């Protein structure tokens, strides 16, 4: 089936003219039509636009052109503004919003010939680890458990990861603020890459926490992610935090191997509470790298345990300010009021869901007079210590290996009554976000219930190439061939 191809395989097939972009797109649109009612991975499906893009891609292919993503159907997280296509950020408040502009990352993908199937579901404003906070309903993980409970795909890029895992798209854009690429990739048994902060432009991506937000790809292979990131990345003068650096050949880096690399094992990531299968998978991963010629080194990231608490000050603080623009005046949903203040208060009370409101409240509180020093300023200092941990570790090793998440996917509805328990999902991913260093999750095994588990590779700032090299070696060694029960072509 065309939907079973990896992105690289599909690209090669198109170039060989084994099938057309129109056929490839139609196969994926069929999968979306068949599966989306059940998985709810897409908020908006732009089928007509996708078909038109596919036709255009076929014309270019016929003319001998070959853009890196020419004719390849992708899902776009509904946090990326897409010109003329509704962009909701998973929120009621943006439910009617049609951007008159295209984000830099998606514009780069279009430049390289990609076909956009539609906008993928997500936690509201990317705030969540379960996709339960979307105003457009939860996404179901295509993987299932023996007890039949519907599972979460993780979050916030849960729609993107579910769509890719279920073969509704060859790859998808995602964003990561504290783990929103790596954790759902792990939950859905696919690969995902959060590049270095500044590698992909944030221009046109609905902001959650500006100092942390970073776009990246999710796809079924590490190599597919490399191809996608090569298109997504690049300097953008419209983003003051965008890095003016050349984009390396990430796909080539996937073929480097790990011989001679020093791989660090941060001892603070280990705890008695860690499930045995995750500990075992971690050891297995280290063994694979050792077999590949890497040297394994114990390292210390002493402030690891403070990452989450730091994150839950910094991210809500920035979000409380970033989300002030949703006020019902210039775009989005408005709830009328007697006066302007009432209009604001009603618009925002009804437009934002419970988790977003909670985080805005926390963020407002930690920045408010009398609390700034105790919370926000202290968190920024701890953040400096977390960065120093990584800097020190990277003086000894080339990359780090850890589990991606402390568990496999959990059931929809679990952890909903305890925000802190939900936040703990990001315990392994948040420190790298705070430090801005690149990270990758690669599917490496199954838990006893048959659910996928990922391993996380972290690298030095702007050294995604080493991250890809390590990820590719793990991928080859793991030989992860398991398939989710719910997928295109699977018996219903």
């Amino acid at each position: 089936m065309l939907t079973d191809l990896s992105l690289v395989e599909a690209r090669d097939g198109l170039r060989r003219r084994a099938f057309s972009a129109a056929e490839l797109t139609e196969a994926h649109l069929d999968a979306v039509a068949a599966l989306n009612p059940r998985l709810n991975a897409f908020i908006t499906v732009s089928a007509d636009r996708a078909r038109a893009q596919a036709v255009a891609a076929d014309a270019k292919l016929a003319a001998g052109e070959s853009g890196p993503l020419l004719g390849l159907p992708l899902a776009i997280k509904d946090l990326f503004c897409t010109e003329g296509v509704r962009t909701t950020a998973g929120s009621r408040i943006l439910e009617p919003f049609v951007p008159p502009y295209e984000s830099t990352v998606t514009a780069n993908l279009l430049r390289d010939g990609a076909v956009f199937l539609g906008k993928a579901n997500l936690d509201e404003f990317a705030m969540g680890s379960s996709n339960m906070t979307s105003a457009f309903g939860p996404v179901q993980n295509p993987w299932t458990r023996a007890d039949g409970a519907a599972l979460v795909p993780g979050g916030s890029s849960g729609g993107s990861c579910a769509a890719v895992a279920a073969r509704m798209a060859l790859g998808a854009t995602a964003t990561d603020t504290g783990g929103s690429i790596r954790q759902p990739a792990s939950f859905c048994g696919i690969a995902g890459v959060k590049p270095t902060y500044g590698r992909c432009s944030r221009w046109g991506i609905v902001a959650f926490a500006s100092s942390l937000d970073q776009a990246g790809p999710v796809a079924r292979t590490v190599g597919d992610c490399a191809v996608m990131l090569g298109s997504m990345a690049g300097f953008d003068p419209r983003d003051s935090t965008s890095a003016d650096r050349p984009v390396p050949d990430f796909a080539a880096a996937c073929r480097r191997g790990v011989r001679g690399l020093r791989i660090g094992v941060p001892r603070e990531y280990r705890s008695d509470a860690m499930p045995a299968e995750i500990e075992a998978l971690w050891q297995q991963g280290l063994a694979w790298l050792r077999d590949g010629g890497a040297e394994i080194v114990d390292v210390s990231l002493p402030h690891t345990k403070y990452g989450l608490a730091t994150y839950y000050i910094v991210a809500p603080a920035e979000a409380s300010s970033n989300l002030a623009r949703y006020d019902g005046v210039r775009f989005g949903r408005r709830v009328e009021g007697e006066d302007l203040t009432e209009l604001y208060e009603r618009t925002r009370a009804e437009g934002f869901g419970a988790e977003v409101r909670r985080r805005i409240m926390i963020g407002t509180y930690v920045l408010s007079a009398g609390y700034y020093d105790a919370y926000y300023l202290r968190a920024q200092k701890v953040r400096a210590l977390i960065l120093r941990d990584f800097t020190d570790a990277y003086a000894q090793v080339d990359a780090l290996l850890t589990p991606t998440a402390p568990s496999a996917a959990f059931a929809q509805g679990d952890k909903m009554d305890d925000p802190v328990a939900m936040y703990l999902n990001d315990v392994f991913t948040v420190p790298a976000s705070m430090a801005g260093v690149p990270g990758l999750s690669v599917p490496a095994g199954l838990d006893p219930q048959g659910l996928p588990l990922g391993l996380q590779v972290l690298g030095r700032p702007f050294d995604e190439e080493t991250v890809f090299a390590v990820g590719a070696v793990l991928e080859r060694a793991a030989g992860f061939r398991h398939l989710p029960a719910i997928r295109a072509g699977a018996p219903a």
Partner: protein
Amino acid sequence: MSLDPATVRRIARLARIHVDPAEAEQLAGEMNGILGWIEQLNEVDVDGIDPLTGAAQMAMRLRADTVTDGGIPELVLGNAPDRAGAFYAVPKVVE
């Protein structure tokens, strides 16, 4: 530092989010749970540490002073829930 419902209402007012009294009670509980958990940062010795504002470790680029944008009133106003001609419209503000 424990939040009471009155503080929650003050914060909600600052954030321009309407909360009714029952909600304020519930939010106070949830926020106290989160803030209590965050208190663990008090264990960290941060003496002499410079705060880190963001992950980008560079100085700011400056752009040239040229007019490259604007002149798109229809696009800027096109998503407005209420507009009056070339203006956005809101309930009358009394200063």
